């Protein structure tokens, strides 16, 4: 743990009539990946713009790497990397030149900027494209280059707005690995995304926002299990025995399919109890898994 991460308290920001952010609280610790999730228009991008020293909030306290993005913008910029959701690249510039320019803009000494560009191109699997003009890159490659740009100065706070959109499955896995590694090295990573499955594997903490407000802030292993029944899928070597046992217990279940039998359970405790009971009954259960993931369930519950 080196840096001070991000602390946001009661941030508000309006655009004319629209109240884009009405009160967001968020804490992102160094060494952790903090996910920012919420429906379209919830104010995620707006919040990230405030953190990235581009927008002045109307109210609230913000600290990025220990500095105030409004009054100490340069200090924040030296320690923060930001990859926007949509961004452009200069035409007629190669990837290597682009990254070298970003390094110069970050006031890295020239040789260091060059060295860093070469390093990052390998990391982003763009080494083969290092000397082609950026506008010929594919969308996913551009996305990777945009993320790479934010890493030029080895920031201690990394703000990513939907970094995985447009990436192929391998790149998404690599992105996860990269972000995990950066976090393990002490970076505070804030990532907004709609890909809950990815986040579930990557994030340490998750902040739910809805209509401009924080509606939940949880460690990923302490997600609210909720009061609503959720679907689980059970599979056994003997499907008939499983079906009989479920019927006997009065469990709300669907007709069996090739994948197994879906049941609706309320909370993890109920699932554990059911599984224990089935095993006691001698049903050869091979798997019992929640459908759609916990994060998705929590998301659906918190953001209505």
């Amino acid at each position, binding site marked *: 743990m080196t840096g001070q991460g991000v602390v946001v308290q009661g941030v508000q920001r309006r655009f004319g009539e629209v109240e884009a952010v009405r009160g967001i609280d968020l804490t992102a610790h160094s060494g952790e990946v903090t996910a920012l999730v919420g429906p379209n228009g919830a104010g995620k991008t707006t919040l990230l713009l405030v953190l990235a*020293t*581009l927008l002045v909030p109307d109210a609230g306290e913000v600290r990025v790497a220990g500095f105030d*993005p409004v009054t100490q913008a340069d200090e924040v910029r030296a320690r923060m990397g930001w990859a926007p959701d949509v961004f*452009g690249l200069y*035409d007629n510039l190669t990837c290597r030149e682009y990254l070298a320019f970003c390094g*110069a803009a*970050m006031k890295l000494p020239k040789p260091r900027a060059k060295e860093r560009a070469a390093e990052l191109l390998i990391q982003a699997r763009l080494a083969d494209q290092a000397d082609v003009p950026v506008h010929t890159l594919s969308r996913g490659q551009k996305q990777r280059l945009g993320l790479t740009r934010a890493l030029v100065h080895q920031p201690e706070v990394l703000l990513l707005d939907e970094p995985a959109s447009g990436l192929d499955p391998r790149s998404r896995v690599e992105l996860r690995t990269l972000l995990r590694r950066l976090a393990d090295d002490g970076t505070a990573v804030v990532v907004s995304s709609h890909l809950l499955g990815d986040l579930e594997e990557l994030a340490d903490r998750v902040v739910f926002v809805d209509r401009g407000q924080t509606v939940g802030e949880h460690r990923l292993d302490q997600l609210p299990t909720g009061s609503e029944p959720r679907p689980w899928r059970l599979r056994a070597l003997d499907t008939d025995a499983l079906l009989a046992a479920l019927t006997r217990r009065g469990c709300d279940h669907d007709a069996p399919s090739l994948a197994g039998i879906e049941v609706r359970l309320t909370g993890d405790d109920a699932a554990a109890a059911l599984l224990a009971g089935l095993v006691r009954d001698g049903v050869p259960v091979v798997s019992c898994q929640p459908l759609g993931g916990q994060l998705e369930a929590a998301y659906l519950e918190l953001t209505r």
Partner: protein
Amino acid sequence: MTRQGIATVAQQEFRIRIRAGRWRWLLAAWFAVLLLVTVLLKLSVDQVDAGDATNKGVVVYGGLTLLVLGLALLVVPTLAAQSVNGDRERGTLATLQVTRLSAGDIAVGKLAAAWGTSLVFLALTLPLVAYCMVLGGVPFGRVVVVSLVLALLLGTVASLALCLSALLARTTTSGVLAYLTVFALTLGTLISFGLGTALTQESYTATSSCPTAAELEQQGVPAQDRPSILAGCTSSTFTATRSRTDRVWWLLAPNPFVVLADAAPQLPTETVAQARARTAQEARGIHRTNLRDADPLGVLGRSVRGLRTPPSEGGGLVSVVTGSSHRPVWPWGLGFDVVLGGAALWLTARRLRTPTRDLPRGQRVA
């Protein structure tokens, strides 16, 4: 704002401009047009029976310079008018603003790139200027001053166009407005001066006085004619109207053409002896055009100085040729233009400053 930061931005802008490719054609067309005009001017000067063949360059240089200014005023807006909002549209501005480059670095760097490009255009005219100097009559000092003033004027226009691109969201709007600004500086000043002059009409009463015998002698009137002239003259009082351009000359001062022409150092005027010799020749029916009198920069400069001079000192349009001793107009005009350009640059930097409090309606940051 640091030198390094400005250089980073300017280099980047330059590189992208150069690679865009169109500039070759633009530069080639620019040089071709100016070459053609230089040749045509030279040919037309050759047609004139000039008593003093060593002054041919004066006319060619003057014509060329005014044309360079006119064409540059058309080219420069395109170099800067989409610089900031173009970046915003492409989505490259916000990522630049979150770097450690300050708003001043970005504004000055962009201006340096646009201005520098316009100076490349100017540099391309230097061979033609050298040719004018070979033709004769163009002092080196005049070339230096004219080039400096030209460079400053182009910088002003570039800065104004850049400012519009920072203020307006759409590139098309800022492009059009940049040209409107150029028109305001050129035609606009002329029109407002014309209207202003119309408002200064006044009637005045003057007395025409008779020449004295001594004055007649000085003018070379033969002795036997003098008594009859003196006898036939009666002094009279008359009323007439006149325009007091000396009250509105400043409306014309920011005009780039006026600034440039007036700032060009005047060529040394004819000595009394030369003038006498010429009058004598003309009396014998030998008519020679003095190319210095046809110097476009000089004529324009002298006329605006004449406009600034109050009637009591012999001002007004009448005194065009004799106006060389009148007070200059260009320091005011150039000063105004440069201050305007500086203010535009300051405003550009202000608009680029982040974090932003007020966003123009409907404009997203990124």
